[in-house]
Structure formats: C-alpha cells, structure tokens
C-alpha cells in the first residue's frame, strides 16, 4: 500500500510539471493551429536561464520564475512575430519544418555556448523530503507542484474572466469570426505563443533543482508535451493538465509494477487506448 501511495504521489508531483509543459503547447495549438515542435527546446532555454541566474546571481530557482517567465514570454512573442506569423496560413508540413528548425537552432546554439556538459543545479533542498506515514514527499517537487497549481489557476482565471483572455479563447474557437468581431487576432497569437513559451520556461525552471540540464534535453519533453496534449484533447487547457498528471502517474506506476525500462511503454499503451476509443482526446471536441 505504501508503495502504491508513494508512486501515486510522486507520479502526481512530476505530472504537475508535465502538465505545465502540455498546457503551453495546447494553448499555442488552440490559437494558431500550429504544433510547436520547438516546445521542449524553449523549455531547455528556460532551464539554462534558471541555471545562470542561480550560479551567477545566486537566485533561487523557484524565485527565478518571476524573472524567467516574463523573459520567456518576450522570447515567445518575438518568435511568433518574426517567424511563426509568416507561416500561419502555410501548409502544415511547412509549419512543422519551421518549428523543428527553430528547435534545432536553439539546442545547437546552447551547445556552442555551454558545451554539451550536463549541468547540475544543487540547492540546499535538492534532495530533502518530508515524510508522512512512511511516504516521503520530495520538497522541491512539492513546491514546484504548488507553483504549477497557482500558475494554472491564474491562467484559467485569465482565459475565463479577463477580456483579453476571452479574446484569446474566441480566436481559438474561430479565428475568422473573432476577427470579424473586431478582435486583433495577430495580437492574440502573439499572446498565446508568449504564454506558451513562458509556461515552458517556467516548467524548465521548476524541474531544474531536481533534474539535470543539457542542450538536447528538449527532445525528451517535446515528445512528452505532444503526448500530453493529444491525450487531453488538442487545444484544451484542462485536458492538458489532466493529461500531464496521467502521464506522470502512469510512468511512475509502470516503473513500480512492471519495470523501469518499460515505463514509457505503459504511457504509450494508455495513449493509444485513449486515441482508439476517443480519437479527439479526453476533453477534446471532434473536429472532423
């Protein structure tokens, strides 16, 4: 029972960070219908930003979210205005090539700047945990889960309650109709990509104290984000949050009850089953 609870809890905590990556990707897809294959690499840049802030200025990784989120937001807006905006009406394969290319440029630039060495960020609390009834809960992961929860709630509030948020959602629902209603859809696209990049960067910052950083780390998370987004229903923020937790929990359960080497198989089997029985994802609406 302890083992079950332990793997459930660590799965949920890791899933929180996955959710953050997935939400960013789904937001971008929802508004622009573009699959951002550079998403993991944007997260990687967030990780390096956190690492630099920590090693040079001594800023705690969790506090540095306050700095890295706005910076990553600006990077996202910049990328959207300069690159993504030009291919919004292009063929899907061209969009995919563009985002993959962006990702390659990012990871190779970081490799030139930082070499491909693994960087490990050791905080005083990197390996501390709280023990409750025989179950140990990682302190840094708990903090990052709480921050994730606050950010997700804040994002939800922004999308549902504010005018800009509603405009973003309107753009996601129907770009042309939104434009006809006087919504500046180009600005909404910029906001969506900025938020997506900001969330990915934040996820990078949150995972830094417990993980390691290297230029190719992005590909691992791009794939995860993609699975999470499709699992939850493309374009659905709540779906991505649920998808993230599902992936986290099934990884950790798979490692315990089957084998560590097979945990990814568990994730993909669940993924395939969802696609078989609900092709539009858990919370997605069918778009056929």
């Amino acid at each position, binding site marked *: 029972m302890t*083992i079950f609870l*332990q*793997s459930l809890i660590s*799965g949920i905590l890791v899933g929180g960070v996955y959710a953050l990556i997935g939400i960013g990707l789904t937001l971008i897809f929802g508004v622009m219908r573009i699959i951002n294959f550079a998403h993991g690499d944007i997260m990687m840049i967030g990780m390096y930003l956190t690492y630099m802030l920590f090693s040079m200025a001594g800023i705690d990784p969790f506090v540095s979210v306050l700095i890295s989120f706005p910076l990553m937001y600006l990077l996202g807006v910049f990328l959207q205005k300069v690159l993504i905006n030009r291919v919004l009406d292009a063929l899907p394969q061209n969009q995919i090539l563009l985002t993959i290319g962006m990702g390659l440029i990012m990871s190779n630039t970081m490799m030139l700047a930082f070499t*491909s060495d*693994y960087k490990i960020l050791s905080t005083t609390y990197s390996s501390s*945990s709280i023990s409750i009834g025989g179950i140990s809960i*990682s302190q840094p992961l708990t903090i990052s889960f709480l921050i994730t929860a606050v950010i997700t709630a804040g994002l939800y509030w922004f999308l549902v309650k504010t005018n800009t948020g509603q405009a973003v959602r309107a753009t996601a629902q129907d770009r042309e109709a939104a434009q006809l209603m006087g919504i500046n859809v180009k600005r909404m696209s910029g906001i969506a990509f900025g938020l997506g990049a900001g969330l990915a960067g934040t996820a990078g910052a949150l995972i830094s104290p417990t993980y*390691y950083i290297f230029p190719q780390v992005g590909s691992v998370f791009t794939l995860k984000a993609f699975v999470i987004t499709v699992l939850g229903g493309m374009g659905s923020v709540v779906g991505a949050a649920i998808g993230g937790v599902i992936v986290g929990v099934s990884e950790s359960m798979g490692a315990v009850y089957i084998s*560590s080497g097979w945990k990814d198989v568990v994730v993909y089997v669940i993924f395939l089953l969802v696609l078989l029985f609900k092709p539009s994802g858990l919370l997605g609406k069918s778009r056929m």
Partner: protein
Amino acid sequence: MKRSLIALAIVGLGLSTAAWSQAVKIGVINSTSGAEAPIGETINNGYILAVEDLKKKGINVELIREDDTGKPQISMSAMEKLATRDNVAGVVGPYTSACANAVSKLAEKYRVPLLVPVASKEDITRQGLKWLFRLSATTDDYAAILLNMALKLGKPKSVAIINENTDFGTSAAKSAKAFAEKNGLKIVAEEAYAKGSPDYRSTLTKIKGQNPDLVFMVSYVADGILLMRQAREVGLQPQAFLGAGAGFGNPAFAKETDISNNVFSSTQWTEEVTWPGAKEFAKRYREKFNKEPVYHSANAYASLMIMGETAAKAGGDREKIRAGLDSGKWNGIMGEVKFQDYDGYNNQNKHPMLVEQIKNGKFETVWPTTFTKNKPIYPFPKWK
C-alpha cells in the same frame, strides 16, 4: 667554403627531418563533450601527462584527438578516420563500453592496434580479437571487489541491482548477479532503467519495499547524483550503497556531499597503491590541473605510455606494435601490466581492483587491506 655550407645545410635538413619523422602518430578517441564529458576530461588529463613523460623519455608522439561525444556511431567514424586518413600507428580509447565495443571490430578490420584504457564491459575482450588490447579491469572485477568487501564487513543477505540499460550497465549488472548467486546473496530487485528520466522515485520505492541489505548501482555521473538524491528522499536505507565505478568514482559526484558521503565506489587505481610512480603521478596531477586524480586518469596515462613506448620501439609499424603489445610487460603506475589470454578473454590485463569510500566530498581508499589501513564506514549511517 660555399660548398661546405650547402653540405652543412643538407645535413642539417636531413637531421631535422629525421627528428621530425620520429614523431609517432597515435590516435586518441575520447568523450570530451556530451553526457560523459566530466569523465572524458579526467581521461584527457591523463593523456596530457603521458605525452609529457614520453617526451622526457625521448619519444615524440603526435596525438590526434577525436571526440565521440559518447556515441558509438561517432566513435566508429572517428576510428575509420584515424585508421585510414591519419594513418596512425595505434589508437588509445574510446572511453565508454558501448563505444569501445563498437570500435573493437573496426580495429580488427583495419589492422590497427587498439588499446582500451577504461571501458570494462567484459565481452569486449571476449570476441577473440587480435588487434584489441585492454588495460582496464572488467565489470566482473568491479562487482567482485565490492560484493566481496561487503561480505567481509557485514552479513548482508540480499542485494538490489540498479543499472542503466547501456553496454556497461547491463554488463556490470550481469556480473553482480552472477557473483551474488555464487556467494549466496539473494537478489531481491533488478532494475534496468533508461537514463535521462527525471523521476526514479517509484523504482527506488519499490526497491525500498524489498529492504535489501546492499544496493549495487551502475550509472554515469548525472544519473548517479539523481539516483542518490532520490534514494535519500524515499529513505532507502541499506547496509551499503555500492557504486560500480564510472559516475560514482567522479569528483563531480563526490562534491555533492549531502548524498555522496559514505557511498562506496570500486576503482582501478588510487593514490595509495604501492605501484611505482603512483604517488608522483598524483602529485603532478594535482599541481597541473588543480583537481583530484582519479582512476580514469591513471588508466589513460598508463595506456598511452604503453602505446607510445611500444609504437616508438616498433618504428610505427602496426604489425610490430601488435606483436610488441602481445608479448610485452610493463610496470608503472597501474602496477604490472601484461596482456594475457585467460577465462575466455584475449589480450586482457589482469588488474587488481580497490574500493574507495567518499568521506566529506573526498575519496578515501578503504579496501583491500593490502593497500590501505583506512577503515571503511559500514553499515551506511542513517540518512539525516
């Protein structure tokens, strides 16, 4: 007068080309970038010292360095380049077992003497290859020294094995399993993980549930740190954490004192060995690089010394170098080195191992008692 000057010039030219042609070309394949870079650096430092010492002996070597980033396919193309384009007399390297294994067959194909300094997957020298020589001990030795020590120090009854699913990891896990079975240790868990995962907690929790007396781990640096961090988090509390060299023997791991203290690591060399030149090597290493010397550096140093000397003696002729390595015997900082055929191995050096324990971020040799009087801390103290 004029004629004699010209003659002098010609003689001078002849001499200088003679000196120049004496430089033997030796290829070096190492992982200086990528995941294995921290260890690649220590190996490279060993090579730097070896080149200096060869020069002192009047042997001029021209090193041609190739970086394989820890990937077998890149290692293989590096080997092809060294063998065909650079025409090196011999090759020292590569670092990882996966790379060394891939490159070994190419050495045979191009008939280039290859000396493997630290890769320890046992199969590498069990392929019946003639051009491949290995100075490094094998994973069998890694597992045997650690488990033997634990059996002498305490009364462990069970062991859990965690390894990354790479050539080195799988090979070391297999060795540990074979040794454990032979010596009546119960294997309660065998977990091969895919490296690069952010979360090993569930695996470790499962192992904790089995309550093993020993935890045997095979990882490189980054995962080693992550595994120990999370072992502490979940409160895994065996009698001993046994790290099979590699990441656990690296200063970057030792530096993380919160989680590295009292972890054992098998090693092929420490400063405390009684082999000739070992203490001077350690001293020079510290002075030059301002870092602690590790076994990877010593292995690399000794390998390049052997390859350099043999290649110079053979005048750069590959066939003669192979014969020289096959029949030669050396005595240096790695003790007596001899490439022999035994137990199904070919050209394998029988190398005695040691065990280090990390105390306050520093490695301390604690085993075997023939080399050191230091007392190992056993069992592992309770996590704070």
